[in-house]
């Protein structure tokens, strides 16, 4: 699934967060959004599955196309959009009332879609395999999802998102609440996901972006109150080794942000 972002503007009540961003995100690749705090990269990410608008007073202008279909068309249903575009958050958020298995099936259960027992089992196994968690939890699928370690919980959340076979997987700083070992596990997983999924990841961690991403987009605010612009966008090699814009060079070199 290719993602086309066209002249996207995003606002919070009285405040612009993303300013006129246009970019094309390729399928079956990992694209990282980097930039200093408050540059609108998380907001941009949340526009791709229409989660931005759940904040009271939030607005979006412009468009996002998934393989040509405009997610912001008048007849597009945000609930359906979110079912097609999976999302993983900064802090692992498994449902505390559900077991590991139930958490994986949460998308189906909560949307009211019924699965046969055999289907449920195959979905659970496939999703947990995809999230690289199966071997660790296969003997305790009935235990609470919150009984796992932080890194395992985050992979459980990835499995939950993958279970519904999303077209796109969005990750909003998925490792920022995790220890180095768990971060390593998630990064390995992202490398595996690249083969079959379109992944967009927001990260504060530049070495991480360099390790996991095929393409990198650098965002920054040019003047206060104007929201974040897309400053430069290219392959990981271009962005880290031969950045064109001076702002990108400064950010990569650690001179600001």
């Amino acid at each position: 699934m290719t993602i086309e972002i066209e002249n996207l503007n995003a606002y919070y009540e009285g405040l612009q967060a993303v300013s006129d961003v246009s970019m094309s995100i390729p399928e079956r690749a990992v694209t990282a959004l980097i930039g200093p705090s408050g540059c609108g990269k998380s907001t941009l990410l949340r526009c791709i599955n229409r989660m931005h608008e759940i904040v009271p007073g939030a607005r979006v202008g412009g468009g996002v196309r998934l393989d040509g279909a405009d997610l912001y068309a008048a007849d597009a249903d945000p609930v359906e959009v979110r079912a097609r575009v999976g999302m993983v958050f900064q802090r692992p958020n498994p449902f505390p009332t559900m077991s590991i298995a139930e958490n994986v099936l949460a998308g189906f259960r909560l949307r009211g879609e019924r699965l046969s027992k055999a289907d449920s089992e195959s979905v659970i196994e496939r999703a947990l395999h995809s999230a690289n968690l199966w071997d660790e939890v296969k003997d305790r699928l009935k235990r609470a999802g919150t009984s796992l370690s932080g890194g395992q919980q985050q992979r459980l959340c990835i499995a939950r998102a993958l279970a519904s076979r999303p077209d796109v997987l969005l990750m909003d700083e998925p490792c920022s609440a995790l220890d180095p070992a768990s971060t390593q596990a998630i990064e390995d997983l992202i490398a595996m996901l690249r083969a079959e999924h379109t992944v967009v990841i927001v990260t504060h961690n530049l070495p991480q972006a360099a390790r996991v991403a095929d393409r990198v987009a650098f965002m920054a605010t040019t003047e206060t109150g104007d929201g974040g612009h897309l400053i430069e966008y290219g392959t990981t090699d271009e962005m880290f080794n031969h950045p064109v814009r001076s702002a990108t060079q400064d950010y990569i070199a650690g001179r600001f942000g």
Partner: protein
Amino acid sequence: MRIARKRRIADRGFTIALACCGLLALIPLISVVWTTASRGLRRLDWDFFTQSMRGITGAGGGALHAITGTLLITFAATLIAVPIAIGTALWLVEYAAGSTSPVIRALARTVRAVIDVMAGIPSIVAGLFMYAVIAVTVGPGYRSGLAGAMALVIIMVPVVERSGEEVLARVPSELHEAALALGVPKWRMILKVVLPTALPGLVSTLLLGVSRIIGETAPLLLVAGFTDSMNYDLTDGRMVSLPVYVYSQWQNKGVDAAAYDDRAWTAALVLLAGVVLLHGLARLVVRRRNQTR
């Protein structure tokens, strides 16, 4: 040296004074429990739980009709009040709080203000209100358990709504986002994620609400009336509850006054035990919730 000593003495004195305050507060509590238990035990027998007061003028008889009445009236009031209260709390927390519409915000402020006022209404006023409503709609002589329950609803709704609102507001926003991001409609998210996550807290809220109304006397005296007989029908006829039973045994003693006193104390003991049990249950639920977190 002298200052340090002076300070130590002042500190010691203050500690002792405060400890005495604590003990002082315990005295009436212990006294109430002790008196109720010692006097109530005299009639805590099989008859008390299996007989009504129909045709009894002296010793004997029981409070089966009052126990049944308390259960029925409390159950009916809870059944009506809890959906209203939790529904209101859900609307305030899940819809109104996230609204940018000035109309909805004003409405939410008004609802909160009304509930705050309702929480302060003396229970006798709730009873009088219900009495007036019944006098106008059904007729001035109508008495029933349901009318009593309706009066208790007025008392129970603000209690359950306020604490339910606190419980619902504590459901982490991360779980809301997790559900919405899976493509779950908001109403299903509330039913399948918010309510189950808040359930232990809501149960203790419910139990607190029940223990708030289970001891109410005044409104029931007005609209549910008093009877010596069994009545299983909430919609028809007078129905007595334990607090009203206590009051009437005490107030209208027959020739054998001691028998009436004993029954009143035993009914008070049963009521006290019920409330203590509810509080224990609520604490147990809360503790279990804290352990699972």
